[in-house]
């Protein structure tokens, strides 16, 4: 009996390992930046290029940094949800317009609604690299101390908002 049980046990362990592996999403790369201070930036506003926003300006409040671009198809998916979230005034959303054209970006916001407290421009993607952005959209939750608490990769969904993002914001806002 044992001569069948042992290979079966080994086989079962392998199946469990492979099964877990199949459920993982290779696109979800854990960010080493979570629980680290958000990289410092100073970027120009999208609508008013003379003004700049510094990341330290947001110290003392919980905020979302949403990386988006008008050329990004998945950003269209999450956009209505962001507009709703902005209307609910739960948390300020800052838009990081990533490697985009200013006029098409502004046009895009005009067309689909503008959920952003302020949109800032990362034309060459340098701040994106600092934040470990490798695809758009990505959304960061940054706490009052300026520490990244969560990174959401891909479009924000109702489920991710309810399960993770909103509870975490509530907790961080205290």
């Amino acid at each position, binding site marked *: 009996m044992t001569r069948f049980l042992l290979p079966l046990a080994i086989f079962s362990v392998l199946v469990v390992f492979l099964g877990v592996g199949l459920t993982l999403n290779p696109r979800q790369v854990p960010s*080493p930046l979570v629980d680290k201070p958000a990289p410092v930036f100073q970027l120009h506003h999208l609508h008013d290029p003379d003004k700049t926003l510094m990341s330290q300006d947001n110290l003392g409040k919980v905020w979302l940094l949403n990386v988006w671009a008008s050329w990004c198809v998945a950003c269209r998916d999450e956009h209505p949800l962001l507009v709703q979230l902005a209307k609910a005034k739960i948390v300020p959303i800052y838009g990081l317009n990533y490697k985009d054209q200013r006029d098409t970006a502004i046009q895009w916001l005009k067309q689909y609604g503008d959920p952003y407290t302020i949109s800032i421009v990362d034309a060459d993607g340098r701040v994106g*690299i600092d934040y*470990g952005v*490798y*695809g758009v959209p990505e959304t960061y939750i940054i706490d009052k101390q300026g520490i990244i608490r969560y990174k959401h990769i891909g479009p924000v969904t109702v489920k991710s908002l309810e399960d993770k993002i909103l509870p975490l914001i509530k907790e961080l806002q205290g």
Partner: protein
Amino acid sequence: MYKFEVAANSFILQNRIDHYSTFIKQLIAVLFVALVPLISFANEAVPVAEDPVLEKRLINLSENLRCLVCQNESLAGSRADFANDLRREMREQMKANKSDEEIIDFLVARYGDFVLYNPPFKTTTLLLWFGPLILFLGATIGLFIYLRRRRTQLEDFPLSESQRLEAEALINKTNKE
């Protein structure tokens, strides 16, 4: 009259020679134009990069780094916009005299160990490093035990005297043939 004819003939001849020489000139020009690409291709290929040594170093380093967008490609091989940006960043850091380790640290700080094709040795990667070795050792031990058990099983059934004689007779018979 005669004079006129000579003059006219020489005029015509001259005209023809002119015609002919312009034709030759045009032919040469056409041939030349047709051959220009060949001539220019004959030049040695000039490297596109301004600093070939640095580019070589960049390729060597980025071959061991994963492109996060197209995850089965290296940063060196990827044509993704993202990979371009990272290569640009690496190029600039190399120009700023950063060492390879510093550049890798810079990337790991932002994208995690995932950018490395060669995973670091950590408690979380122990299974990754030793998994194959454990499997190999397990299989070897299993095989060893199996072979030993089989040998003892064979020894458990010695031939009887009549069987031994029969076998010997068979061997002798085949040897003769």
